[in-house]
C-alpha cells in the first residue's frame, strides 16, 4: 500500500468503526499453493511501488529510474527496485558467453569465464551505490517531487564478488600501473578510468547482489562495485579491465561526470560521494491524516566511511535533535535513522543533517551554491527540506 505513514489513502477502511470485525474471505478458504510463483513477487496491493523516471525520457535506453525510497524501510533495497541508469539499455547477456579480459600493464593477461571468476576467493559487502547526478536541487526542484524524484538514484545492496585487487594479483601489475580502464559489454561499451587507490580500496568485481546473481539492470552477469564512489564508475556488464599508467580520458570522464564551476572550469575525477541524508518519511507526497505521534525516518550515508550522527530539525533548521541510528552502522552503506515526533497540526519544515566519521558535516544547499554555483550538476549533497502544511500535505521545499 502506498506509504504506511500516509500516502494516498484508499477508501475509508470498511472494517474500522463500523461494528464487529468480519471474518474476511481469505480466512475462509485456502490461499495460493507453494511456488506460485516459484520466484516470488510483491503483493498486487503494492503495484505502485516501482521504479520510475523523473520525466519521460527521450531515449528510454539512455535514461534513469529512481528507487521509491518513500515506500522502503531499513537499509536494503530489493533488487527489483534498485535505481537504474543506462546509456544503451540493458543487454541480455548469456553468462556462458561472457568473458572478462584483464590486460595492459600486467605480467599475465587473462581471459576469464564466469565459472573461473566464481572460483576466486570472494567477499560480501553491504554498500550503497549513488548516481552523482542524484538530487538535482541546485536551484530547488519541483514542489511536487517525492523523495523518489529528489533522492531516488541511491540504493543499497549486499554485493558479493572477487576483490579487484585479487584479480590484479592474479595477472600481476607492472610497476608503471596507475589507472585501470573498466569497460562494459553493453551497447555503450561504457568506460571509466579508475585510479589505483580506488581499485585497491576494497573494489569488487561482483556477480551477486542481495544473495542472488546480479539483476540484468545492475550488470548481469558481472559488474564493478566501487564503494563510496559515484555510481557511473561501477561499470556494469563488465567485460574488460585494462591497466594503464594514466587516465584514459573517456567521454564519461570528460564530457560527462565533470563538475562545472562558476568560472567555467570543471572539476574532473570527482569520485567520492560525500556525506548526505534525507528524510524518507514523512516526505513529499505523503499526507498526514491526524495530529499526534509520528516517527521521522530517513537514510544517511557517506562515501568516506561510517555515519557518526544525524540531527533532525522540524523547524527548518532553527533547532536540531539527534536521531537514533539503526545498528549495524556500516562503512559506505546506508544508515537508517529515526526520531520520534509529535505533530501539533501546525506547519513544519523537516530536515536532516548527517555527519560522518571524518567529521564532515552535510552542508546546506546555500553553502554548496556559495562555493560551486548552480551549474556543477553532479554531487549535490545538500540538506533536504520537506514542508508539512497544516492540512498534513507534505511537499518538497528543496
Amino acid at each position: 500500500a502506498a506509504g504506511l505513514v500516509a500516502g494516498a489513502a484508499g477508501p475509508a477502511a470498511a472494517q474500522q468503526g463500523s461494528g464487529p470485525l468480519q471474518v474476511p474471505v481469505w480466512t475462509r478458504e485456502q490461499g495460493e499453493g507453494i511456488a506460485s510463483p516459484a520466484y516470488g513477487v510483491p503483493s498486487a496491493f503494492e503495484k505502485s511501488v516501482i521504479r520510475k523516471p523523473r520525466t519521460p525520457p527521450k531515449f528510454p535506453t539512455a535514461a534513469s529510474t529512481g528507487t521509491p525510497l518513500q515506500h522502503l524501510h531499513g537499509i536494503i533495497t530489493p533488487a527489483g527496485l534498485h535505481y537504474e541508469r543506462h546509456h544503451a539499455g540493458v543487454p541480455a547477456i548469456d553468462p556462458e558467453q561472457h568473458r572478462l579480459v584483464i590486460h595492459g600493464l600486467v605480467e599475465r593477461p587473462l581471459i576469464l569465464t564466469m565459472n573461473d571468476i566464481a572460483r576466486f576467493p570472494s567477499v560480501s559487502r553491504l554498500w550503497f551505490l549513488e548516481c552523482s547526478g542524484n538530487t538535482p536541487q541546485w536551484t530547488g526542484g519541483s514542489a511536487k517531487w517525492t523523495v523518489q524524484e529528489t533522492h531516488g538514484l541511491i540504493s543499497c545492496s549486499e554485493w558479493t564478488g572477487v576483490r579487484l585487487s585479487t584479480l590484479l594479483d592474479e595477472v600481476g601489475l607492472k610497476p608503471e600501473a596507475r589507472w585501470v580502464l573498466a569497460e562494459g559489454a553493453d551497447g555503450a561499451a561504457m568506460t571509466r578510468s579508475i585510479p589505483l587507490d580506488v581499485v585497491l580500496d576494497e573494489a569488487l568485481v561482483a556477480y551477486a547482489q542481495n544473495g542472488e546473481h546480479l539483476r540484468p539492470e545492475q550488470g548481469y552477469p558481472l559488474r564493478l562495485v566501487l564503494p563510496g564512489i559515484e555510481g557511473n564508475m561501477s561499470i556494469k556488464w563488465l567485460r574488460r579491465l585494462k591497466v594503464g599508467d594514466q587516465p584514459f580520458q573517456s567521454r564519461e570522464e570528460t564530457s560527462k561526470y565533470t563538475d562545472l564551476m562558476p568560472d567555467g572550469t570543471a572539476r574532473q575525477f570527482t569520485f567520492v560521494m560525500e556525506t548526505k541524508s534525507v528524510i524518507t518519511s514523512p516526505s513529499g507526497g505523503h499526507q498526514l491524516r491526524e495530529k499526534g505521534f509520528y516517527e521521522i525516518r530517513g537514510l544517511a550515508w557517506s562515501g568516506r566511511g561510517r555515519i557518526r550522527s544525524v540531527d533532525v530539525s522540524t523547524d527548518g533548521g532553527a533547532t536540531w535533535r539527534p536521531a537514533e541510528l539503526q545498528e549495524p552502522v556500516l562503512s559506505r552503506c546506508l544508515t537508517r535513522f529515526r526520531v520520534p515526533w509529535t505533530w501539533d497540526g501546525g506547519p513544519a519544515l523537516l530536515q536532516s543533517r548527517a555527519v560522518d566519521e571524518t567529521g564532515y558535516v552535510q552542508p546546506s544547499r546555500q553553502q554548496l551554491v556559495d562555493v560551486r554555483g548552480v551549474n556543477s550538476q553532479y554531487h549535490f549533497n545538500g540538506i533536504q527540506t520537506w514542508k508539512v502544511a497544516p492540512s498534513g500535505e507534505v511537499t518538497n521545499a528543496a
Partner: protein
Amino acid sequence: APLGIGHPATQAEIALWDIDVRADGTGLPPGRGSVAQGREIFAQTCSACHGEKGQGAEADALAGGKGTLATAKPVKTVGSFWPYAATLFDYVNRAMPFTAPQSLSPNEVYAVSAYVLFLNGLVPEDASLDAKSLPKVAMPNRNGFTSDPRPDIPPVARN
C-alpha cells in the same frame, strides 16, 4: 602467488575488444577520413538525432556553446567543452550511431570525427584526419579541467 585460474590472453584473441583510444591517441587504428566524407556519413547516420549541423535535436548538441561555460546557461559540446579530440574517436567508435554501436569502419569514424570537429571550427573544411593528426587537434577547453578539491565546503558550527 597466482591461483592458476583462467586462460592466458593473447593480443590476437582480444583484439576486437581492445578498442580504447587514449587522449594521446594511443590505440587509434590505421585509417583516415575527411570532413567531406564525414559530412555525408553524418547526414545519413547522425543528423537525425543530433541535428543537421550537430546543433542538437533529440540528442545532445555536438557543436556550438563557445563561451557559455561561465554563464547561466552553459552549453557543453565537443567544441566548447571536450578537452581531447581523441576521445571523440573513442566514443563514436564504441557507442555511435546509437542504435548500431561499433558498426562504423575506422575510416568512417575518422571522417565523422573530422566533420564534428569542423562543425566546431576546430579543423578546416579540407581536413582529413588519421591516427597521427587527430590527437593533435587543438581543443579550446583543453586546460579547462581541475582536480577534485573536496571537501570544499567550510564546516560551519552545528547548532
